[in-house]
């Protein structure tokens, strides 16, 4: 086995590490701690954060990549790059059907010519295979597995709750109830899912017979990456240019304003489409850059983040410029100037810490927008690599499926539900964060 560190993995881990370092720093800085404590005291905030952490865990598992060693002599490795999540989901990944099948089905979705028996719905290779000929037990089996799953989930939830008791004792003022209720609900859903998934395709299969639950779980990493890396890429430029424009004024301000007004006046989709097409040509003409298809898809994903970042820094930049213009006139900045403090020091000591709340609010508010943007862009075909599993590509293929008669609804529904939960949690969390950090709502 050989570990593979894709660029996006590296950046993602970097981001998580950055988040951890920021968290440690925020613990020591009083106003940050006070604001985050407010987030921690909010039930909605903590529940949403729990959901986001679960999503994040899936994405992290899906970001540890490796190539399997091939049996035989010498150092030979498989061409496919797998992740830990793939390994965990081996049963889902390695039991493809021939084509579409509905959730929990035992038979294929379309009739086929079966040798000797005429046209009928063929049995699935794996879905419900354990039932053998006893198809009448299908309903009972599902019910049994659900019950087992619920029991298992309840036990797991209880265990988590017990494990969490010391946490509660250490920080009794935080809204732990919300966390454990959310975790409990998660366990009660995940338990039956896990039990059912061992014998069935819980969310059905797609056109080439891949398990939809597997696809949805794999989509999470793509969504999170786009939502976070894009912000990471645009943040330095937005902060630097925004503060500089506001503080320096004069021609520097004019140039920066001109830059973002121009960028803003080009329709975003057009700009993104042009950039994505250029990038695609570039990637296609240089196949030697990438040793595996995973690396190529990864490069394309990162390029998409960069492109989205380039077009989305203007909003935050403008916001920061306005805030800096205001702060510049405040008396403590004037006092610092009167004391002969240098401009650089004024920017880092007086301006930056006082616009940080805007940056944090922008990061969490932009996240859900970016997840949705990925879906839209992939839907119109200028998003991620078609081989990358994402909510956008799932929705894109669903276009055809909805036109079939009868309709194949489960891919779209699964993508929709997962994306909805993710975006809803992100939005709720963003609202709580904004309320905690916005000085106008303080007190």
């Amino acid at each position, binding site marked *: 086995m050989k570990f593979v560190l894709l660029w996006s993995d590296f950046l993602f881990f970097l981001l998580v590490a950055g988040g951890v370092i920021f968290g440690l720093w925020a613990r020591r*800085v*009083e*106003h940050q701690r006070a604001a985050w404590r407010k987030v921690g005291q909010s039930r909605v905030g903590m529940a949403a954060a729990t959901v986001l952490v679960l999503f994040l865990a899936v994405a992290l598992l899906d970001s540890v990549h490796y190539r399997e060693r091939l049996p035989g002599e010498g150092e030979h490795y498989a061409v496919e790059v797998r992740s830990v999540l793939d390994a965990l989901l081996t049963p889902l990944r390695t039991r493809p059907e021939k084509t579409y099948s509905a959730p929990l089905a035992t038979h294929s979705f379309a009739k086929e010519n079966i040798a000797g028996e005429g046209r009928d719905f063929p049995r699935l290779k794996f879905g419900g295979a354990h039932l053998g000929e006893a198809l009448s037990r299908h309903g009972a089996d599902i019910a049994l597995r659900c019950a087992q799953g619920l029991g298992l989930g309840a036990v797991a939830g209880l265990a988590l709750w017990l494990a969490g008791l010391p946490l509660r004792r250490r920080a009794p003022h935080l809204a732990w109830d919300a966390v454990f209720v959310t975790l409990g609900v998660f366990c009660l859903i995940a338990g039956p899912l896990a039990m059912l998934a061992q014998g069935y395709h819980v969310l059905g299969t797609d056109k080439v017979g891949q398990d939809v639950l597997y696809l949805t779980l794999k989509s999470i990493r793509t969504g999170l990456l786009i939502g976070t890396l894009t912000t990471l890429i645009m943040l330095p430029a937005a902060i630097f240019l925004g503060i500089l424009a506001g503080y320096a004024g004069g021609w520097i301000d004019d140039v920066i304003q001109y830059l973002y007004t121009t960028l803003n006046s080009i329709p975003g989709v057009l700009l993104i489409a042009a950039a994505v097409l250029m990038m695609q040509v570039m990637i296609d003409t240089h196949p030697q850059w990438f040793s595996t298809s995973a690396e190529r898809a990864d490069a394309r994903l990162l390029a998409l983040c960069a492109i989205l970042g380039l077009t989305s820094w203007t909003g935050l930049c403008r916001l920061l410029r306005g805030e800096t213009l205001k702060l510049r006139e*405040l*008396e*403590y900045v*004037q*006092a*610092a*100037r*009167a*004391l*002969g*403090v240098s401009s650089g020091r004024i920017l880092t*000591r*007086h301006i930056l*810490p*006082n616009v940080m709340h805007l940056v944090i609010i922008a990061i969490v508010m932009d996240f859900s927008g970016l997840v949705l943007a990925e879906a839209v862009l992939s839907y119109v075909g200028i998003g991620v690599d078609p081989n990358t599993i994402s909510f956008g590509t799932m929705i894109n293929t669903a276009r055809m499926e909805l036109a079939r008669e009868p309709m194949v609804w489960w891919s779209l529904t699964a993508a929709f539900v997962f994306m909805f939960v993710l975006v809803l949690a992100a939005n709720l969390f963003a609202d709580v964060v904004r309320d905690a950090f916005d000085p106008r709502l303080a007190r």
Partner: protein
Amino acid sequence: MTLLTVRDLTVEIGAARPVEGVSFEIAAGETFALVGESGCGKTLTALALLRLLPEAARIESGSIRFAGEELLALSEAEMRKRRGGQLGMIFQEPATSLNPVMTIGAQIAEALALHGGGASEAKAVDLLSAVGIPDPARRAREYPFQLSGGMKQRAMIAMALAGAPQLLIADEPTTALDVTIQAQVLELLARLQEARGMAMLLITHDLGIVAQQAQRVGVMYAGQLVELAPRTAFFSAPSHPYARRLFAALPAAGRRGRLQTLPGSVPSPAQRPDGCRFASRCDVALPVCAHEPPPWREIAPGQQVRCHLEEPRKVGAGGTAQSGAAVPEPPPATALLAVRDLAVHFPIRRGLLQRPVGWVRAVDGIDLELPAGRTLALVGESGCGKTTAGRAILGLQAATRGERLWQGEALKGLAPQRMQMVFQDPFGSLNPRLRVGAIVKEGNPTADVGALLAAVGLEPEMAKRYPHEFSGGQRQRIAIARALAVDPQLLICDEPTSALDVSVQAQILNLLVELQEERGLAYLFITHNLAVVEHLAHQVAVMYLGRIVEQGSVDEVMRTPQHPYTQALLAAVPRIDTSGKADRERLLVPGDPPSPAQPPPGCHFHPRCPRAAARCRAAYPEAVQLSATHGVRCFFPG
């Protein structure tokens, strides 16, 4: 006849009671003044009378009888008819009380229609002329932004009059206005009241206004009334220990040196002591005061005091002035900083290319000499260019022309080791993200924070805390410590006490005097408060529309003012006369200060000057030297 009777009014916000057990009466045609420091519950009392309390607050108990009717028993619809009808109201901030997208005339007409006057433009114009707005027909068609602050307040008064109220509730009606405009508005209120037989509930923190306008006075402290008295009795013999300390804290002429101060600050509504709420700050407190609420006592006809002392007047230090020994005059000093012909013009930019189309002459050629170890006060109304002048002298603002000579040597830009500044807003002048220690060290990383904090009267341990844990006065001390850290010789103080309450102001003024004595600091003290000038300054310069119109020693300018504008400023300040007599014989200057973008030709003051002659309209007067120190720019001084 009693018009309004308030009994045991208590307002609750959550668990706190910012107003508790307030009872008073107002007779028809009478002016009752409610005085107290900020946060003592004056505004909430007024809002409770109108049943206009903010969302979070509610009237817990009490009774409000107005013209024989219990207001608390009325339905909201009936109450709405009373509001703006029999009960008129004006608020502190005229700018936010008027609807910006309706003309003044339409807003008054609307108020008239609501209260059965019948909406008519003509009546609105009548009201506008009744409140002394010149050219009312034109003004009625204008929008609020086209009116000056004083005119907006007049328009607000006109709206309040539309319902022909029997009681006018005025919450700090002149606090946002300049002193000459304040004098005009107060005069107008008194005149209207007399003509219409209105009663008035006047809420203010300014004892001068009380002395001038009120017939009876109620003093509030921490949510309770502590003294009720007729004006004459109150001003000749204020009796509650708090009221007496308030008087002693007022800076005034003939009271140089230290002011008496109140230690500590008002207890917050959330944690109020069981006994007398003033106990922790009272210098004559008895043991019983700490746990037993004091009873009301009638100590003279009509004068009631809430205090455990049998005869509060007789105990403790003298009620009013601590006859301060005058500050020994420091020896005549050489000029530390001389300012020559300093001007700051701001371009007015218009159009696509942002070409300047005109100039705001904020500071238009001023000459000043700041002697070492002395205080020069720069006085003027808002917008006259005081702050810009201070910033330009410091070097924060580039000057259009002129020079600054530090002991004869020309200065370029900032001179942080020589001059520092203390700003007006104690809440904006400290970075909320930094600890006090870091703030004080800002200009000098090697400064001894503990010693500096001790020098400004704070505890050295406070260095570890953040600014939001401090009150306005403490923040101002921190700002002073920060300036002192670089050991400057000159401190430019821009209205350092105007955002503070009287008792806190006294503490800061005392601190400034002490620091001057200990460190030989020179001050350029920018202010609009003439009482503070008399208390603190050695020399005074009066500024009007970017120029200095009169300067001299404090005695020369304050006792024998020569410029008509200086005279008007001094006359406009409401004075406390211990006999309790209001002097209505006051020189009022008409009109508003003109805009510095279009100063009147000739002498800038001529449109408002009672002495103006043809000559004044033709040329700006040159400075006339009346004595070695006293100069004035007027053709007809005297």
